[in-house]
Every structure is written in structure tokens, then in C-alpha cells.
């Protein structure tokens, strides 16, 4: 934990002025200085913001990972439809794909630096997987229902295109995992987490900037050329930016 104190009177540093109430870091040799984001990050309580280029690179990797997932899930959907794979085997194979994608997404979010991933990160990923497994299970039941309906009434079974499309949705959540990984799980929501009308299809991205106040990160919800849902349009206005206050940054 950081050893901090709250400034009680105006203090003047070399190139800054501390106002009363500001969180100060008590230094080992005595004295104190204004807390910085690096201080928080060093203690595991902060967020290391990658540069815009670095973030773009990581996002590109994530896109590649998701594209790979989409390809493989489409193959699995085809196997399921033509009888080459049972529904339970298909579910297990999909679970493995979803899990691998989320693990990879978490690693990529930290720029491949495995040491940055803590137990808390893996716990968060495990939570994400729970919800995706649950959705996948319900999807499997829906497929069974459709099979029953097709047998009973002769209506066509799901098309391959549809099955592949639906399978893709379960990988879309990896994007949310990516951003939550970057923000140490502190974001109230993230693109692709299913909290918007577009669900895991979300095409939006987040941009991070250091705020003027130490320990405060500015988060921008950015739209891209796509058919956006109302929720995303609204978020792009309200998160413009969103002030993300990190633990220990309760400065005035």
C-alpha cells in the first residue's frame, strides 16, 4: 500500500502547487510529494496507459485472434450441422476456443508481458468465461429445440450461416476482456461486454488518456464506421471522456 497523507495546507513544490486535500505520497527520506500515476501503478493500484500506437498494435492482435476464433467456430458449426460432431462435443470444443481466446486477450491487453497478469486478472477472466459458458449452454439448448421443432413440423433447421454467426457472438466478449484487462477491471462497462444493444457485436473502441489530476484516467468511447446502436451513440457522448478514478486517488 502507498503511504500517503492528505495535504492540509497549500504547499509549493518545484514545479507544482499542492492544494489542501490533495493526496500526497510520503517519501522514505521524509517530506512528501504529489502522487503520480506511476506511483499507483507501481503499487498495483494504477493503470499503465499504453501509447496510442502501442494500443493500436495490441488491438490489431486482438482482431487477429478474434478472426481466428471466428474461422474455427464456423468450422465447428459446419461439423455440428452435418453430423460430424455431436452437440456435447461441439459445446466442449467451443468452450475451449472461448477460453483460449479470453486468455490470449488478457495477455495481449498487457502487451504480452505475462508478469503483469495477477491472480485478480485471471479471476476476472474466469468470471467472463462463466457468463459466456452459460450463454453457450443456452444456445446449445436452443439448437436442440430447433432440432425438435424441425423434426415435429418440418421447418428448416438453422442454416450454416446462422450457426456460424451465432457462434461468433461468444468470441466477441473477448474485446471487453481486453479493455478490462487494460483498465484492471475498473471500467463500469466495455465494448463487447453485452451491456449495449449491439451486445458482443460492438465495433467501438476505447481510448485512454492521463487526466490532469493524478490517479484519474480519462476514457473515451469511440465510434468507428459501422451501424451503431443507440447505446453506443449515447456512450460516445457521455464517455467523452469518462473520468476513471483509481483507488487512492480521492483527491478533490
Amino acid at each position, binding site marked *: 500500500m502507498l503511504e500517503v497523507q492528505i495535504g492540509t495546507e497549500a504547499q509549493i513544490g518545484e514545479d507544482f502547487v499542492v492544494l489542501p486535500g490533495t493526496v500526497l505520497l510520503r517519501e522514505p527520506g521524509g517530506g512528501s510529494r504529489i502522487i503520480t500515476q506511476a506511483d499507483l501503478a507501481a503499487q498495483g493500484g494504477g493503470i499503465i496507459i499504453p501509447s496510442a500506437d502501442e494500443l493500436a*498494435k495490441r488491438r490489431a*492482435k486482438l482482431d487477429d485472434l478474434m478472426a481466428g476464433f471466428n474461422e474455427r467456430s464456423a468450422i465447428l458449426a459446419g461439423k455440428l*450441422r*452435418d*453430423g460430424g460432431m*455431436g*452437440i*456435447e462435443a461441439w*459445446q*466442449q470444443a467451443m468452450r475451449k476456443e472461448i*477460453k*483460449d481466446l479470453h*486468455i*490470449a486477450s488478457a*495477455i*495481449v491487453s498487457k*502487451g*504480452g508481458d*505475462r508478469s503483469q497478469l495477477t491472480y485478480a486478472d*485471471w*479471476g476476472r*477472466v*474466469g*468470471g467472463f*468465461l*462463466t457468463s459466456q*459458458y*452459460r*450463454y*453457450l*449452454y*443456452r*444456445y446449445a*439448448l*436452443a*439448437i*436442440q*429445440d430447433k*432440432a*425438435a*421443432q*424441425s*423434426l*415435429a*413440423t418440418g*421447418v*428448416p*433447421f*438453422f*442454416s*450454416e*450461416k*446462422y450457426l456460424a454467426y*451465432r457462434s461468433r*457472438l461468444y468470441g466477441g466478449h473477448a474485446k471487453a476482456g481486453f479493455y478490462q484487462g487494460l483498465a484492471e477491471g475498473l471500467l463500469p462497462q466495455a465494448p463487447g461486454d*453485452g451491456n449495449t*444493444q*449491439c*451486445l458482443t*457485436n460492438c465495433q467501438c473502441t476505447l481510448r485512454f488518456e492521463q487526466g490532469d489530476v493524478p490517479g484519474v484516467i480519462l476514457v473515451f468511447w469511440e465510434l468507428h464506421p459501422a451501424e451503431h446502436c443507440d447505446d453506443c451513440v449515447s456512450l460516445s457522448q457521455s464517455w467523452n471522456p469518462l473520468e476513471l478514478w483509481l483507488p487512492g486517488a480521492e483527491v478533490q
Partner: protein
Amino acid sequence: MSDEPQVGKTKQGKTVVTSPGVSSPSVGHTMYGRYGTWLGSPETRYGKLRSARHLPDWVKIEMLADPVIGWCLSFIASALIDADRVIECADPQKRQFFEDMFRAWEKDFMAQAAMSICLGHLGLIKKWAFEVPQPVESDAEPAWPWAAKPFVITGFDPVYPVGSSPRFDRERKHFNGMTVQSQNVDVFYSLWLTSGKAWAFGDYQGRGRLEGVYLDWWMKRFGRDAYTVRMIKSNDPAVVAFYPPGQTDGGKDHRDIALELGDSVRGLATIALPSTVYKQTSMTGEVSHTSVREWDVEYLEASIRGPADWIQFEGHINTQLALGMFIPPQAFLQVKQPELGGRTTADVLLNAAIKILMMDATGVDQHLTLYAFAPVDVLNFPPDSPPVRVRTVGIAPDTKVQLFELIKSLLARPDVSPGEVDVQEALNRLGFPTPDRDGGLSGIGAAAVGDDDEVPDDVLRQMLQERITPPEPGPVPISDKEIDRVFRKLKETFPELFQD
């Protein structure tokens, strides 16, 4: 006492009818035994099955909470709001005056009137004010050139249906206003909308569209309860505990021990069956016991397979509800395509739906003309001035198109029972957002069935026979081994990511 009603005459010559006393079994939550704990009381939630002609208002209001009924009500309301209406009067200035007054609250009023079409009746309180109706077109002059302000209706407030009723004189000839929550509302402020009065044999409670779908709605609710019980039983199947009849040395009945044993391995009901010990006699006359179990427990496997049958059943009910809200079930049942000489069932039903909508709209027009426009007319215009009325002249073209699409979708194929039609699919075709059961998007509805090869029946049967493993509760564990594997794979795929 006979079970038949007794009819007779008193000394004063009055006719008396006595009905036999009736006692009915309790239909409270106990009907579901121990499962009632979860279900609460069905009687207070949706009530016993009763005559559709005498539904209490609270049941009707509960029916409005059904998503399919609610959606149909919204559709009817929007159809009424968008319908074309004209004000007719021989005096152009007077016509314009009523036009200005009416258009200010036309849409609000029609939304309220839609509720009366569903419920059969609705009480409204007229809001009167001394003010000059302003023209709909902002640059036009008000059609009231005189100095004194007219006394006009500026809108309506609906009253809560439960506890509201119309009041009449003793001979039930003159409307005296309404009673709302035990308070009387004067006739001057009251407008009691009755829909389908002719179909209700003159009853001012009217005949709402909800009556036509009551049975299906009740069945849906009852079916859900039954399904819930099945589901619980499936998750917590009954246990059979076998025991040899008799008692312990301490005098405790073996049956009691068996029940305790069964209860200890599960949460809910337990069945105890005596496990009779069979004897057999050999050829030599020796008597011996068979290998019948004396003490044992076993779970009864429930026959429930999955929610497919329930979903199919609810889909059928939803279709019935939607069709019933738009078209009276009687009309629907009498339409068969071969009898129609080439026209499709959807065409015929569309016309029926529009005519019925127009009939309802005409009923609303009459109420407005007689009980809203007439008093305004009397208060503000001389007795010999020409009469004024409102008349619905047609349903908006958009509404017709939507209604046709809807009915066509509900019917799918003229030769197929509506029970086999997917309401969700119908809504998709109309462009309504309908999230899939697991949160997927509706926009892909059209792609749900494509031109692919048909899936063979044996593949579908195989899918149905398999048991799908549900996920474990709690966060999914991630092992170091899995992380290592993914990490290695990532390094191979994106070596540049790991250069540092």
C-alpha cells in the same frame, strides 16, 4: 336441497330464483404441494379459470402485462391514432372550431380509447376550460371571432378501471355519471367509453378484445406454473426409500426410518415403499429368502427432457393471443382457404381485422360525437346551428401494410395451423427488435433459415438424444498449464509482441 336452481313466486307475486349452495375445493398454492413455496398463490396471481364474459377488471389488467397482448394493444393504439378522421359540419366556421379543439387531444384520446377496446370499457374525466381552441396550423386564425371565451374540452383523464362503474337512473335509461373508487363523478365531467356494446347485449361493461384471448392467456399462465413444477421435479427428483415392514427393537417404525433416510439425501418430497421380503420354497420343501432389498434408496428419474416442448407450447399460445387480439377467434375459425375462391386466408383475415378495427373506431366516434362534441356544441352554439360529428374514414395505409404482413406472418402458410407459426419470426419480419433467448440479435432472423441442404433427420435425432452438460457455477478455473499453452501459441503467432 336439489342441485338445480329453484324458481318460484312469493306471496307478493315476485319471482324468486334460488341457486344451490356450492362449495369448491381450495385451489390455492396447495395444489402444487410443496412446490407452492416458489409459486405463491396462482389464485391471487391470475385467478381461477372463469367465464370470459364476466372477467373482473383486475384480471384484465393482469392480462395487459402479457408481452404479446401488450404489443397487440400498442399496435391497435397506433392504428387508431394514425387512422384518418374528419370533422363534419355544414357550418365551416363551426367545423373549424371543433377541428381545432379535437386535434389538440386527438392522439392522446385515441391512445386511451384503445384501452377501452381491449378492456371493453373505460371511464374518462373530461377536462373543461374557458379557452379558445388554437388552430392546428400555426398561421391560421382561430375559428372563434367573438369576445367571450368558449367553454371547451381540453383533454381527458382516464380513471383506474378497478372500482369504476357507470351510474344510471333507476330505470337505467339516463347516464348519471361514474363512480370512481366510491366517489361520484358528475355526468358533466364523465365519459364512459363502451366498446362492443352490441356484442355484449347492451351491457355498458362492453365486450373487450381481451375476452377473446382470456382462455389462451389463462392457459399460458397455468402452463407456466405446471412447467415450473416439472422443472423443479426434474432438478430435484423424488426418492424412493425401500424398507422391510416392521419395527426396531426400540419400537421405531421402519417406515419412519426410511422416510428420514430418504429426506437426508435430498431436499423435497420422499416416497417410502415397503420392500416386501419374498420367500421361495425349494423342491425339497426348504423355505428360503430371495435377494429382495430390504433397505434401499433410489432417485426417480423425471421424464422431462428439456424445455423444447414448453417453448413450442408457449409459441402456440402466443400466436393464438396475437391472432385473437386482432381478429375474433370465431371469425378466424370459420375461414378456410378452399372456400374463398382463390383469395388467401391472409387477405380475408386482413379485411376482417380492418373492418373490426373500423367498427371499434366508429364506436369511439359515436361516443365523441354524442358525449363530448354535443355538450360543447350546446354550451357554445345556438340550438339551430348545424350538428357536428367526427367520423373515421379509413385506416392509414402503413397500418394496413403492417397488419397484412403481421397476419401473413402469423399464418405463414394458409394450410398450416397457426399453432405452428413462430410469433418471434413474425415480429422479426415486421422489423420489431426481438432478442433471442440467449441474447443474440434479431437482425439475423432472416438468415436463421437459408438455402442450405436439409439436415438429415437422424442427425437431428442424435442432437436431441445427447445430454448437454451445463456449466459449473462460479468462475471458470484457469490452470497454469492452459495459460502456458496459450502463451506459447501466442509467441508463435505474434513473435513481435514478445521481442522485449
